[in-house]
């Protein structure tokens, strides 16, 4: 039912040559098995791809590749949105920086049965001022408000949106991504350089 009328208006690899193309990305983080891949699979057209990165200096272990899953969807004929599963380790050498740098923002999937698994990712995004939303998976409707109160009590910034999300449901994923992007936009607006910063007092010559 979720798909009625709007299944994959993917614009496909488009465009006459010379068309202006650009891309954006969103990071999906959270603990192991919380539904990161499912979340992405619900919104992108094709199955996920897996990119590898080499973690260097691991005692010469060549075969220990970091695998990073991702999907892509064309949002309009010139804009490709990529969704990356954040690597489990927040290690620049494990490809983490490549994934996070320049992202619109991040979705932290949060299993209320295993909250600790997602805390590292939340801390990281808080510390690095990357806009994120907390998407609660596995929430029974009757406990929802309690859960939200507890999460607020964990000390995340009050402006961080907390939403419910079923990673298997396309509409739910879409809503989460919209909430994130709106939040990121607001965040960006708030952080725009103020008049003080844009008019430096540096001498002209």
């Amino acid at each position, binding site marked *: 039912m979720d798909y009625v009328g709007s299944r994959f208006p993917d614009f496909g690899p488009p465009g006459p040559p010379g068309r202006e193309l650009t891309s954006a990305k969103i990071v999906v983080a959270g603990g192991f098995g919380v539904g990161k891949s499912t979340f992405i699979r619900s919104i992108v057209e094709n199955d996920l*791809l897996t*990119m590898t990165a080499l973690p*260097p200096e691991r005692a010469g272990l060549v075969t220990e590749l970091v695998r990073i899953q991702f999907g892509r969807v064309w949002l309009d004929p010139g804009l490709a949105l990529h969704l990356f599963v954040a690597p489990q380790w927040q290690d620049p050498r494990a490809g983490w920086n490549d994934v996070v*740098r320049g992202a619109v923002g991040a979705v932290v999937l949060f299993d209320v049965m295993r909250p600790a698994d997602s805390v590292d990712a939340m801390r990281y995004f808080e510390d690095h001022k990357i806009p994120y939303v907390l998407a609660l998976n596995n929430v029974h409707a009757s406990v929802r408000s309690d859960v939200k109160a507890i999460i607020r009590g964990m000390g995340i910034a009050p402006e961080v949106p907390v939403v419910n999300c079923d990673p298997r449901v396309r509409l739910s994923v879409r809503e989460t991504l919209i909430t994130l992007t709106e939040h990121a936009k607001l965040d960006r607006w708030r952080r725009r350089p103020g008049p003080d910063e844009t008019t430096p007092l540096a001498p002209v010559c």
Partner: protein
Amino acid sequence: MSSAADAHRRRRRGESPAEQTFADLMNGFSLDSGRKRTRSESPVPAREATPVAEQQETPVFETPVPELSDASIVRAYAWTGGRTRSNINLEIETLVSANDQSRQSAGILQAEHQHVVELCRSPRSVAEVAALMRLPLGVVKVLLGDMAERGLVDVHQTASAGGVTPDLGLMERVLSGLRRL
């Protein structure tokens, strides 16, 4: 300065030059022994001074579609001349596409460039090229950087190129795109 001290300092800074160490290691013992000997005779500080300088002709290997094995990674680093950095700023989501020049050059390109050109007939991101060619990200960045410098692929810069956050215009576009999904 001893290179060991340099390497140590770089590691302290937590930057990717660690990759170079790995690549050099791999190139060191990977290929046939004759090549290895000639490489080890060349002065070591060369890579310190100009890590992205043009080196000798990149060797071409027979297998056009590499598999993800130790050997193919070694081969991949040989393609890049052991380099792990590119002159062109490529994010993982940056789109690249084949252009007229690469289409006309079809048939005379080296195998891995040919493969990239075929993949990029429709625009692909760096991450997609890496995934579809089954090559490590670092290798693909260098490969695509080389091809871009030679004019074989067009690079469509992302709005976040250089690490800054995407601008409001792009976010607005993402938002309206998501709403249409």
